[in-house]
């Protein structure tokens, strides 16, 4: 019965900082997220599903590729405002980009585009970039499969 509740002891001296330093841009993306939804099966050239086990956030991302560029991109996200806004911003950054450029998008690019994100929310921003990488990997796999078939 001595089951200690499952939660962390506060390590004295760890900087925590304000809870809520959302930028206007972040709030705008939270309010009006871009590219929300899913792509039709037929439209989808790549798909990624990633989750952050530490906070339970989850993200799904679809891409359609035309002429070596991301022609369409769509996402769904379960998570905190940071997760939603970074996902939305990521799709905006990726849309229309050549594959190689899209591959080079980093978390910092997304954070910078949002004008920053609270320190304790940074881990959420990982999901978008990760999901894109997974989707691009999926696309590559499909390309390879197609090439093998043809």
């Amino acid at each position: 019965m001595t089951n200690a509740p499952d939660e962390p002891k506060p390590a004295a001296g760890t900087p925590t900082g304000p809870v809520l330093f959302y930028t206007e841009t972040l709030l705008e993306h939270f309010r009006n997220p871009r590219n929300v939804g899913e792509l039709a099966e037929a439209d989808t050239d790549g798909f990624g599903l990633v989750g952050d086990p530490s906070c339970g956030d989850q993200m799904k991302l679809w891409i359609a590729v035309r002429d070596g560029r991301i022609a369409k991109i769509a996402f769904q996200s379960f998570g905190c405002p940071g997760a939603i806004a970074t996902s939305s911003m990521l799709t905006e950054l990726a849309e229309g980009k050549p594959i190689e450029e899209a591959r080079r998008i980093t978390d910092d690019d997304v954070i910078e585009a949002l004008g920053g994100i609270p320190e304790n929310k940074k881990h959420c921003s990982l999901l978008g970039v990760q999901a894109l990488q997974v989707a691009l990997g999926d696309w590559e796999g499909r390309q390879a499969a197609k090439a093998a078939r043809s």
Partner: protein
Amino acid sequence: MIYLDHNATTPLRPEALEAMLPWLGERWGNPSSPHRFGHDARVAVEGARERIAACVGCRPSEIVFCGTGTESDNLALRGSAHALRPKGRHLVTTAIEHHAVLHTCRALEAEGFRVTYLPVSAGGVVDLDALEASLGPETILVSVMHANNDTGVVQPVEEIAALTRERGVRLHVDAVQTAGKLARRPGDLGADLVTFSAHKLYGPKGVGALYVREGTPLTPVTTGGGHERGFRAGTENVAGIVGFAEAAARTFDGLEAESRRVSGLRDRLERQLLETVPRVSVNGAGSTRVPNTSSLSFQGIDGESIVLGLDLRGICASTGSACSTGEPEPSHVLLAMGLSRREAQGSIRLSLGRATRDEDVDVTVAALAETVQQLRRISSVR
């Protein structure tokens, strides 16, 4: 703005501010100074102590003023543990206590105390059988909150008091979330130690109090000039203490009518919400709750996002207890009640107060419905 975060903090009553102003102005004396100007402040502090004792139902000498509710909890737990160490090293508490209690228990564990964290039912009520079974010859203190800050669920502290009294074990009750909400006088609960926090009952931030039943062994946590009968040294926050007393007196006065009014609003809110929004559940709904609190779980979306959605619509809500860390941890209270991590993550707390009106409830339900719908449209989880 519609403020539905009264469990985090409440607005200071204007009458309390009024009562404080002289002590922030021309009557600035130190209550310990040996002149009449200091004595004036001493009289104010002792008068406030009497007023609070009257609200709480105890003797003035049984009230110890502290700086926060958290500090009062620390004094109760650390003070009891250190005073009673020769008798035993076992403490009993619950898995749903406020961090002020839980993290203090952790600190005591690091000092060599053993702590039992009692489970709660799906309704959020501590298991009395488990409590009775946990008591041993080494047990020196039981600490159980009167009502939980996240769910508002009221714990059976009177029954617990009967058990602990029979066994000669001391009982601490954190009444931060019931003082000024429940008609029962905290001094009548049968506890040896009871925690209060001024800013949760329309008093100022920076003052708490611990009821210490006469004769209760307690080692001070903060030592120095012997203030507060040696239990809590440091120059008294005179204005804060006076404001606390004014707020408490007014909040305890007419408490029953206000409680009825607020619980009516809370019930209306939950009813409307359950009618309007699909896939939502009320945590602890079947249990006795304080009148103002509603803990809600929405499937498939995140609580922080709901809170921000409401915030952008002018409504202040919370994901649960206001912890300063900004950690993404879901509520330990809801987890202890058996919710999954994702269910707990999809929860928010609405806590009503004196200023809440019918219209606020209607506006809130509409805003919630909108926010939830929007977030579910985005969500990757059904």
